């Protein structure tokens, strides 16, 4: 029915943005170590696909993240979320990535990331929210230049149902130059949660569950 469709489009634009903010919609994965003392700055933009002004597109959620190599196998990162900031919400993430297994033959390199996402809406102490997240990434470097295929899953936790939100992903890392890397990812947000009859009419919902989204990131070596 026309009226319901219009309502859902409008509400979807509004609410889908929040969906992205925590479950890693706007960030791309930390795939392989950047090396001790090295650092980079990454800007990423992403989200599940939903109708925005009648156009089906990923909701534009953005993250700016600084990453630094603490040693050869451990990276630290700190990110801020501009999309949330212009809405008057303070939003950051901070975490550590441990690269636990190097690539060996068919065995992919494995990395484990632990992050904390923090949110605060201005002038509202009760709005403070903190969400831990664990991410496991497997990756194959398959070219001398450093092209990498990777896959994995984000797991965001909260004190409400669903207590854990899974986000499987597959991505491709492309080095453009010695300083610039591009990441392209496809994510399946909340694949065990039914998509039907939600306020948001997500456009890509495999088997009626979750929502497909896309992410792209641009990293610049400092």
């Amino acid at each position: 029915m026309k009226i319901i469709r219009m309502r859902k489009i409008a509400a979807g634009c509004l609410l889908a943005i929040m969906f992205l903010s925590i479950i890693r919609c706007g960030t791309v994965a930390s795939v392989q170590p950047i090396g001790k003392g090295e650092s980079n700055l990454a800007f990423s933009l992403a989200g599940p696909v939903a109708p925005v002004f009648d156009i089906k597109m990923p909701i534009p959620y953005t993250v700016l993240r600084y990453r630094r190599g603490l040693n050869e196998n451990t990276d630290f990162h700190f990110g801020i979320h501009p999309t949330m900031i212009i809405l008057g919400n303070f939003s950051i993430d901070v975490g550590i990535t441990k690269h636990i297994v190097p690539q060996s033959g068919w065995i992919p390199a494995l990395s484990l990331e632990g992050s904390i996402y923090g949110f605060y809406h201005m002038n509202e102490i009760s709005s403070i929210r903190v969400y831990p997240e664990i991410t496991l990434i497997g990756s194959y470097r398959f070219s001398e230049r450093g092209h990498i295929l990777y896959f994995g899953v984000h797991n965001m936790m909260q004190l409400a149902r669903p207590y854990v939100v899974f986000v499987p992903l597959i991505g491709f890392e492309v080095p453009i130059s010695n300083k610039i890397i591009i990441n392209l990812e496809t994510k399946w947000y909340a694949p065990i949660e039914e998509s039907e009859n939600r306020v948001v009419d997500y456009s890509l919902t495999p088997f009626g569950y979750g929502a497909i989204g896309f992410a792209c990131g641009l990293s610049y070596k400092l």
Partner: protein
Amino acid sequence: MRIKTIIFISSLIFLFCTRIFSLDDFLFEPTKIDEYLRTEDFDEDWGVRFIIPDSLIEPVTLTSMGNAIYGFFVKGYPDSMINNQVTILYCHGNSDNINRYWGRVEYLWEMGYNVFIFDYQGYGKSEGNPSGEALFSDGNVALDYLQSRTDIDTSKIVFYGWSLGSYVATYLAADVYHPPVLVLEAAPASVTALLHDAGLINLPGSYVAEADFDNEARIADIGCPLFMMHGKADDFIVFERHAPLIWEKAVEPKQNLWVEQAGHDDIPEILGNSYNQAIIDFITEYVLNQ
């Protein structure tokens, strides 16, 4: 490099503090029109029958936050037993404007009640733009108008809110004036509940909207009997994710009508005469028999 960093961080702090962008506009779906109640503007799906004589329809212009808002006071059917005893303050839903809800006015008018329906700012001919503050202001103005009329019993003004209008009706009942009864149809629990429904995240609604839309928080303070209707097949304001949140917080006396086959828009159509009877029975018990 350090100066650039300081400028960048300062800019972000400034943006954070000023909240330069709000998503409230996405909450509202008004349709502007030049004139009300023109038959060519009505959609067949709205179920309008044009059964109310023009002589009983009184156009009303009010001022809210400096903007003109428009409404219609519909006098109860002259032969009705309860004519002029009960007046329904009807707070309509999110889509379009008064035209969209005229069929609902007809249902209530058929029951024998006076009905006052008004367009929020930005809806229909009403000036301004919709917002949480504007809707609440419009509701206040509408209530003041009814209470100023000398030809109705101002102690028998029933608040009726459908969907988005439930926020206004509940706000009026809880924060402004306790009516004899409050009727809610397809009411969302809150923006927070919508957020959780959409994104599975337990963030407060204030993260996305400034509008203080929270039926769940206000319902315990309405100070009057509550009648709630909700379609169990509602695919927008899904029954399980909204109705119980309000219902459990509401205090007695309260009644509900959960309609198995009904969606968001069609409770009266699904129920038929039972819809009329349910409302009449409730109002008779808690308003007319008091």
